[in-house]
C-alpha cells in the first residue's frame, strides 16, 4: 500500500512537471530570457550611479549563473532539458507533499477532491509566498537570499497549517487560529530589497508575475487531479 501511494505521487509529479514545462516554454521562459538581457545593467530612472550588486555583475559575466566559471547549461535545448528535469523533480517533490497531506488527513480521495487539494497547494506554496515576495525576474533587486528563503518556508508551513485548521469541521476556535496562522507572516512582512530600482522594465515584471501565478495554478490543478485519481485507485486496491 505504501509503495502504491508513493508511486501515485511520483506519477502525478512527473505528469505535472512535463505539463508545466509546456506552459513555461509558451509563457514564462521567454520573459526570463528577455529579463536576462537587462541583467547587470544600471537601473533605469534616477539612479545613475552604481546600481548593480557584485552578484548581479557576476551574473552578467556568464548569462545566468552565480560566480563565473561554474558550469551552466548552454542556452537552447540543453537549458530547456535541465529545466524539464528540474520541473519533474519539483513536480515529484510537490506530489509527495500533496500526497502526504491527503494520506495523513485520512480523507476519501477522488480526482475532484484531488483538484481541491491542489488548490490548497497553490494557496500555500504559490499565492501566499507571492504576496510577500513578488515573483522575481533575473536582475530584479531582492532582500537577503537566506532571509527570503526562511520567510518563504515559514509562510508555506503556516499557510498549510492554517488551511488544515480551517478544514476541520465546525470548530470555531481552530478556524480562528487557522486564519491567524495564515495572516501572521504577512503582518511580520517579508525581507524587502533596499531599493526597487532595476533595469528590468516594469511591464515585463508585471507580465511575469501574472504568468507565474497562472502557471502555478495550472500546475497544482493538474498535480492534484492526477494524484487524486491514482490515490483513489490505490484506495480501491487496499479495500479490495
Amino acid at each position, binding site marked *: *500500500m*505504501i509503495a502504491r*501511494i*508513493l508511486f501515485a*505521487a511520483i506519477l502525478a509529479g512527473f505528469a505535472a512537471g512535463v505539463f*508545466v514545462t509546456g506552459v*513555461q516554454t509558451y509563457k*514564462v*521562459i521567454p520573459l*526570463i530570457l528577455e529579463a536576462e538581457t537587462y541583467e547587470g545593467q544600471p537601473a533605469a530612472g534616477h539612479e545613475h550611479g552604481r546600481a548593480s550588486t557584485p*552578484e548581479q555583475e557576476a*551574473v552578467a559575466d556568464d548569462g*545566468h*549563473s*552565480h*560566480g563565473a566559471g*561554474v*558550469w*551552466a*547549461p548552454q542556452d537552447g535545448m540543453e*537549458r530547456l532539458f*535541465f*529545466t524539464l*528535469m*528540474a*520541473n519533474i*523533480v*519539483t513536480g*515529484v*517533490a*510537490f*506530489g*509527495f*507533499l500533496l*500526497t*502526504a*497531506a491527503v*494520506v*495523513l488527513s*485520512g480523507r476519501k480521495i477522488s480526482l475532484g477532491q484531488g483538484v481541491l487539494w491542489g488548490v490548497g497547494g497553490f494557496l500555500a506554496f*504559490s499565492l501566499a*509566498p*507571492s504576496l510577500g*515576495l513578488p*515573483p*522575481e*525576474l*533575473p536582475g530584479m533587486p*531582492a532582500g537577503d*537570499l537566506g532571509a*527570503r*528563503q526562511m*520567510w*518563504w518556508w515559514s509562510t508555506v508551513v503556516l499557510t498549510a497549517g492554517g488551511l488544515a485548521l480551517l478544514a476541520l469541521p465546525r470548530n470555531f476556535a481552530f478556524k480562528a487560529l487557522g486564519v491567524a496562522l495564515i495572516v501572521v507572516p504577512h503582518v511580520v512582512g517579508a525581507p524587502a530589497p533596499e531599493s526597487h530600482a532595476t533595469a528590468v522594465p516594469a511591464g515585463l515584471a508585471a507580465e511575469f508575475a501574472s504568468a*507565474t501565478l497562472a*502557471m*502555478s495554478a495550472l500546475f497544482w490543478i493538474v498535480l492534484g487531479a492526477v494524484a487524486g485519481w491514482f490515490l483513489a485507485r490505490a484506495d480501491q486496491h*487496499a479495500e479490495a
Partner: protein
Amino acid sequence: MLEKTASFTAAQSLSTQRRLAAGLTAALLGTFMLLGVGFAHSDILHNAAHDTRHAFTFPCH
C-alpha cells in the same frame, strides 16, 4: 459482535499505522527533493534548475 468490533479496531489501527508511515515518508521525500531543486545554494544545482526556480517563484539570486 464483540469479536467483530475488535477485529475492526485492529484493522483500523493497522491501516492508521500504514497511513502514518506512508504520509511521513512522502512528506520527508518531498521536503528533501524540494530543498535540493529549489533552495540549495550550490551553484551547479542553481544553474541547472535556474528557470524552474524563477518560474515557481522560489527565492533565487
